[in-house]
């Protein structure tokens, strides 16, 4: 009976979303006060319903209720309880519920925390959000109901959670990512409301900015965790694959970054109003498009869920409805958004304009490469192609270069126009400090230098120096100056660290595949690697071969274990990499095939500065989170 309770709650939620999606709008446009809803209470009720439904699903997992088809497909009696818990969002159906829950969490936070006092505006944001949540809930109930039962004879045991998902990073990566994606709902709903009421640019931008920053922060964390998980769990040592699904998260990330920068200008100067509206629509649409690409299985991807064209069509329908709907409003409404503020080429406004231009063109080019196989298949009548990682690297490099150069001088710019004397003086100061930093890093690093790595190291130093610049006013203490701009300092320094990590790891990594018997050792970089022994071990729901490896250099002698696991009952193999983490490099080894007796193949890698990539992403997330919280308090 209990799963039905969750099912019924979900249906009640659907109905309430429908009512919430229609009534408040009707009240405004037909001027009938009687139709108004107490939106704070309704939002709370909605939130309780979806939370309850989600808790029931978690409960079904925890008590091993295999009569629920979704539980039977994604859990198993022997699965440790924390993975049973996480298995709730381990596949398509459950993750949809989590997604809806996340949207509702954003809505409730917005309704209760925003400083917006305009009731009509708030009611509209509420209604638009309800419409989106209604569409997702309808989709869940019609095509992907997680509460569906296998009756009358339920299986005795479940099929198990995909072994590569049985991992701590996986338990938090999807929720963070879904919170990031779904957070873009709020800027979208605000943009639609701003169009309907022709709200003053400065006003609506101030409502939208904190939520854009917060969802960008969650997206950053979600993507970074996914990258980290792929790095150590898949056993390949890669951290980014340009997989369609990674791109599907990267594109909304780029657009959300563009959006909150554009919103800064809109809020402070009242310019770029229409552009910010368009960007809000675009960011939300690409996050929906990402869902479509993942869930319909139309692209070759390591992430693809089981194929189901019907689901794809349904999401495409939702996507079309909201994109076309909002774009129609955009084109027919006579928007009075862009007002008179003027600016010069060396102004902050123009800096933001360039930033947005570069980010958006980059996002579109990546999106194009991602969906190009589909276009190609359609125009050539079924010929299949894939677009390789080099395409994306060729595209990314010049844009990242231009963005980085801009980022290094961006903080010197003033609104309207910048006084060129102090501007040039400070850029000159910056250049000197940059070359000092480069020399330092090269000293830590190595003997040989590649052009691309030099450029990325230069860029990292350039961004860092531009962020930690000296204060404009001499009489202000440097630390209090930095403290005042804590958020931007965190985020921009984070970007510098990320760029440095990417630049170094892509040029200076070492990699080797070879065959070893116990007792063998070999030289690798500045390390001596020895395969000491291999033994059988037993886990809660797997058995494995674990190899003991030692890495020895002039100072340290560290041992590490790499495993080849066989999961019961699926029989699926996974590789657990052995990783020694150091501040400046990772020593990485993963077990390959068993050739005979105790002889195994191994893949050994040295990854310098790889940790800096995730550290940088973490700082970016902290920075945008701080900025978002500050904006909520201030607005």
């Amino acid at each position, binding site marked *: 009976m209990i799963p039905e309770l969750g099912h019924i709650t979900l249906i009640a939620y659907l109905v309430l979303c429908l009512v919430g999606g229609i009534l408040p709008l009707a009240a405004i446009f037909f001027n009938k006060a009687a139709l108004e809803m107490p939106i704070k209470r309704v939002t709370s009720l909605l939130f309780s319903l979806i939370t309850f439904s989600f808790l029931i699903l978690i409960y079904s997992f925890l008590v091993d209720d295999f009569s629920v088809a979704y539980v039977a497909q994604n859990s198993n009696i022997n699965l440790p309880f924390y993975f049973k818990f996480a298995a709730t969002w381990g596949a398509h159906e459950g993750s949809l519920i989590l997604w809806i829950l996340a949207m509702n969490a954003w809505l409730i936070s917005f309704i209760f925390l925003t400083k917006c006092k305009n009731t009509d505006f708030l009611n509209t944001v509420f209604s638009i959000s309800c419409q989106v949540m209604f569409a997702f809930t309808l989709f869940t109930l019609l095509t992907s109901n997680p509460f569906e039962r296998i009756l009358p004879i339920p299986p005795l045991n479940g099929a198990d959670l995909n072994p590569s998902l049985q991992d701590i990073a996986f338990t938090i990566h999807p929720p963070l990512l879904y919170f990031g994606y779904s957070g873009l709902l709020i800027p979208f709903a605000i943009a639609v409301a701003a169009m309907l009421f022709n709200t003053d640019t400065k006003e609506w931008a101030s409502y939208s900015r904190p939520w854009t920053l917060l969802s960008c922060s969650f997206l950053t964390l979600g993507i970074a965790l996914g990258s980290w998980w792929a790095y150590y769990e898949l056993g390949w040592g890669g951290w980014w694959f340009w997989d369609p699904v990674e791109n599907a998260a990267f594109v909304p990330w780029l657009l959300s970054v563009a959006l909150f920068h554009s919103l800064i200008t809109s809020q402070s100067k009242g310019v770029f109003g229409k552009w910010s509206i368009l960007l809000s629509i675009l960011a939300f649409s690409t996050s929906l498009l990402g869902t479509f690409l993942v869930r319909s*299985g139309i692209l*070759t991807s390591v992430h693809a*869920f*089981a194929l189901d064209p019907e689901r794809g069509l349904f999401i495409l329908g939702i996507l079309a409805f909201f994109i076309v709907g909002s774009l129609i409003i955009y084109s027919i409404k006579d928007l009075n958004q862009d007002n008179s503020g003027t600016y010069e080429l060396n102004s902050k406004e123009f800096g933001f304009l360039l930033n947005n231009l570069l980010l958006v063109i980059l996002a579109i080019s990546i999106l194009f490469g991602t969906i190009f196989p589909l276009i190609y298949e359609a125009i050539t009548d079924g010929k*299949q192609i894939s677009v390789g990682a080099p395409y994306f690297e060729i595209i990314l490099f010049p844009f990242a270069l231009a963005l980085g150069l801009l980022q290094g001088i961006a903080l010197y710019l003033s609104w309207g126009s910048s006084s060129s004397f102090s501007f040039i003086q400070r850029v000159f100061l910056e250049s000197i400090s940059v070359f000092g930093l480069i020399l330092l890093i090269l000293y830590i690093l190595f003997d040989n230098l590649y052009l691309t790595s030099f450029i990325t190291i230069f860029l990292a130093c350039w961004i860092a120096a531009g962020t930690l610049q000296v204060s404009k006013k001499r009489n202000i203490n440097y630390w209090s100056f930095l403290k005042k701009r804590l958020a931007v300092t965190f985020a921009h320094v984070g970007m510098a660290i990320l760029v440095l990590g990417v630049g170094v790891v892509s040029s200076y990594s070492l990699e080797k595949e070879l065959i070893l018997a116990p007792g063998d050792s070999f030289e690798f970089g500045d390390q001596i690697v020895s395969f000491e022994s291999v033994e059988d071990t037993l886990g809660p729901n797997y058995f494995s071969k674990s190899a003991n490896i030692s890495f020895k250099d002039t100072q340290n002698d560290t041992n590490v274990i790499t495993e080849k696991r066989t999961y019961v009952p699926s029989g699926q193999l*996974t590789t657990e990499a052995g990783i020694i983490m150091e501040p400046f490099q990772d020593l990485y080894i993963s077990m390959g*095939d068993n050739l005979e007796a105790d002889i195994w193949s191994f893949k050994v890698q040295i990854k310098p500065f790889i940790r800096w990539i995730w550290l940088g992403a973490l700082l970016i997330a902290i920075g945008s989170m701080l900025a978002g919280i500050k904006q909520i308090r201030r607005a």
Partner: protein
Amino acid sequence: MNPIRKQRLYALVAILIGSLLATWLVISALSENMNLFYSPTEIKVAELNEDTLIRAGGMVKTGSIIKDTNSLNVVFTVTDYQNDLEINYEGILPDLFAENAGVVVRGNLNTDGSFKAIEVLAKHDENYMPPEVAKLMQEDS
């Protein structure tokens, strides 16, 4: 010039340069990094140049995997149930690579008609099959 117009001009020029650069980049990068997918049957028919990088795939034939014991060389056969294709690969195979499972390889043809793979991709979980391979199987049945 009136400041607003000047402003529009700046923006327009920036957009123009940006999109031209992007279009040029996209076209040149795409023409070099587009890998066509072939089934074993299509490879038989198509007259492919030996150094063209392509993708091929199908099901790994039961009993066809031969691993060398003192090097990382491995030979296996993929099939679309009409024709077979022999694949040579040097390196560690992914964990999900198995007999009778879908696989996609990237590489080029050897002179003897076999395929030299530089990358082997296996399916991600039991329910999932690379779309190219899934399509092949559908066409068969």
